[in-house]
């Protein structure tokens, strides 16, 4: 105890102005980190509304939300994987595989089909996670490989053709057809998942562990965090949300095919996660903001059409806007390293 006594005469909490100074900058950052993505989306929406007033009145928000729904669900899983410092290039392919399996099974096994499919895609995600965690391979390369495998699985199970939901798809279709305040349930499903994931990251040990892995995996290992299982869980959740995306695809299209709806979700979903403020180097994710990221990413092509921008220039505009939006919403700390 006298060790304490020995140092009592030292100036306690000495240079405390430091606290104020050190924190003021990050605080401004943090505020923008939280409000940036919604602000960007709303501003863009206002611009579009001002230029084509009829668009919003005609249910523009519904369209944006409907097209954002599958992007959002895939992006949420991606955000979690990015949160632990990895990346999942296969989750969009898993979503498509899920959609095809769902279309194939809905008529035969009926209402349990979605549950069965969710289980299967979660296992697909878990497989990624197990390999990343236990074979210790970089996720970028690994999921590039499993992307090929899952895509082929989608092609083969569908018989390389469009699979239509023969019957029993009414309940799933209702998710798209039914809305709350004009926004389809598929989107609200994404919002609910976002809120749950947000709560998970903020209020649970699992979430804290994920953040720890994302910020400093070595430190997490030495703190007895079960880093490997955490990776498996993150990838499994990525597969799971891809499965939910599959349900929204079926809800919207009533069918699935290897090149149809949902076959190009990978890059938009990554963009959505990053536009939503997710750091590509890990440890910083706000699932709620990913909702706005997905909305923004869905809005851009829709807005180019609504504004009547020349079709030839649309992909150029898309590229420029995505860069600009990320440049605006990104959190930068002075002197930090961007790769």
């Amino acid at each position, binding site marked *: 105890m006298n060790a304490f006594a020995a140092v009592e005469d030292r100036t306690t909490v000495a240079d405390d102005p430091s606290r104020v100074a050190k924190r003021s900058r990050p605080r401004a950052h943090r505020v923008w980190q939280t409000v940036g993505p919604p602000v960007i989306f709303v501003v863009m929406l206002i611009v579009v509304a001002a230029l084509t007033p009829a668009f919003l009145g005609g249910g523009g928000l519904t369209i944006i939300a409907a097209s954002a729904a599958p992007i959002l669900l895939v992006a949420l899983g991606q955000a979690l994987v990015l949160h632990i410092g990895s990346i999942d290039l296969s989750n969009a392919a898993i979503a498509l595989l899920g959609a095809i399996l769902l279309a194939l099974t809905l008529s035969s096994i009926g209402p349990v089909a979605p549950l069965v499919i969710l289980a299967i895609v979660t296992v697909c995600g878990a497989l990624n996670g197990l390999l990343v965690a236990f074979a210790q391979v970089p996720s970028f390369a690994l999921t590039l490989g499993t992307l090929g495998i899952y895509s082929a699985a989608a092609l083969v199970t569908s018989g390389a053709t469009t699979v239509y939901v023969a019957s029993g798809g009414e309940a799933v279709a209702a998710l798209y057809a039914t809305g709350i305040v004009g926004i389809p349930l598929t989107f609200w499903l994404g919002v609910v998942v976002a809120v749950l994931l947000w709560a998970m990251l903020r209020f649970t040990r699992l979430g*804290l562990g994920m*953040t720890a892995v994302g910020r400093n995996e070595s430190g997490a290992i030495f703190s007895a965090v079960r880093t490997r299982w955490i990776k498996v869980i993150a990838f499994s959740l990525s597969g799971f949300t891809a499965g939910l995306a599959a349900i929204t695809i079926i809800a919207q299209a009533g069918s699935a095919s290897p090149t149809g709806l949902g076959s190009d979700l990978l890059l938009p979903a990554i963009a959505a996660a990053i536009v939503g403020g997710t750091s590509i180097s890990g440890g910083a994710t706000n699932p709620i903001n990913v909702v706005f990221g997905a909305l923004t990413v869905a809005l851009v092509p829709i807005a180019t059409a609504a504004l009547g921008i020349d079709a030839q220039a649309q992909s150029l505009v898309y590229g420029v806007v995505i860069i600009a939006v990320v440049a605006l919403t990104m959190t930068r700390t002075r002197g930090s390293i961007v790769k």
Partner: protein
Amino acid sequence: MTEQTPVIALKDIRISFGAVAAVKGVSLEIAPGQVVGLIGENGAGKSTLLKIITGIHQPDGGTIEVNGAPVRFRGPRDAIAAGVGVVHQEQSLFTNLSVAENVEMNTKPGKGGVGRAGFYRWGRLNRDAAETLAKIGSKLDPRTKVGDLSFVDRQMVEIARAIRVQTRDGGQPLVILDEPTSVLERTETAILEREIGKLREVGSVIFVSHRLDEVMRICDRVLVMRDGELIADRPVQDVTEAELFRLMVGREARAESRERHAPAADERPVLEVRGLSRRGEYDDVSFRVFAGRLTAVVGTSGSGREALSRALFGAEPFDRGQILLDGAAVSDWSIPKAVKAGVGYVPAERRVEGMVGGLTAAENLTLTHPGASSAGGVLRPGRRNKTTQEWFDALQVRPNDISLELERFSGGNQQKVVLAKWLTSQNLRLLVLDHPLRGLDPGASQIVNAQIRRACDNGTAVVLLADTLEEALEMGDDIIVMRDGEAAAHYDLVAENPSTLDLLERML
């Protein structure tokens, strides 16, 4: 002192980061060929001052003169061009490049081994580097990849790079060494000390260290910083270690001695290691640690003691032998299992392994032992903050802000939190400490040591890999000397009283 033009003269240098005045009006002069020690507590502003001299920070006020001419450094390039070379506190080599490239890193195109158009002439580059290395007595192969080198050798490469710097007129450089020894073992320090001593033939030196004995041995003059100010400037002959300690910390050093006690005859050891081996690391090591006793393991950097300590924590596997905790042999040992069994570990690589810098102090403190601060996997921030605040108060962590990211604290304060992380455990049976005082100033060291003692007194068995032999002798109940992976000697300090010389002899 001499009448020569000082190699560097600072006048009233000041710098603030936001509201923190890190350096508050420092003036000093360094004569050619002088080796000057710079000491001060963690956060006193030493590194910041040196970063100004090396062009990394631009001062808010004050002037710098090099060889009598006023200079303004806009960046590290300018400082290098003016003849200021530096070995930073943090390791700053490119591990994927060769020794020669690292030594010649600052060579401008058109000079030495780098052609005008930016082409490398490897032969010339390697020769130049070998020459520079030879000046400090190193025979490293310039073609070796730095990643394959040991710590001492890397440090030699850093020094070689620093002295490779020349003034415009080809004059002697000012070499700045910011804690070059803190990551080194005792014997390695000996190598380095010898070479630093020789540096006065190459140029002038500013040498930062928290080891006062070292400063006393190497330097001609000692500067003491405190709270951003230079509060003392003494020739080494005129001061004692105790006086330096008082100057730095503002109070007397207090020699604290532990009451050592032998275990009871029938007592069961908390930790028993039987014939533990790992190929290429350590071989057939056996020892026992009893509750409330501290075993210090000493050895050189190749002795295998780090790998051994990691094996105890389940961080590295072992090939043969047994680890018994409270009499039961462990199997399929891993970190999560070790933690569950009441083992704690403070790694040497604090920033990388010891903590998750991006999480707050409170989160770090409760990451491993959530205890009452989480229920059924759900966090309870209120409880967590209360626990953390108690530890902050007990350990005098500064700043006293539990919701600050841990990476924003100074090294000493980080180490207090890292240690507290283990001390919060309800059943800490064994604490393995790998260089717990590395980089800490003497004041912080005392607080940390006090905590270690307290843990011992509460019945925890401690295995300590000390920074210095003195520390091992002061803290330990037992000392195990490791050499080339084998336990070469064992001293029970209750009964014996070996000198540092005895220990060194067994180590080598």
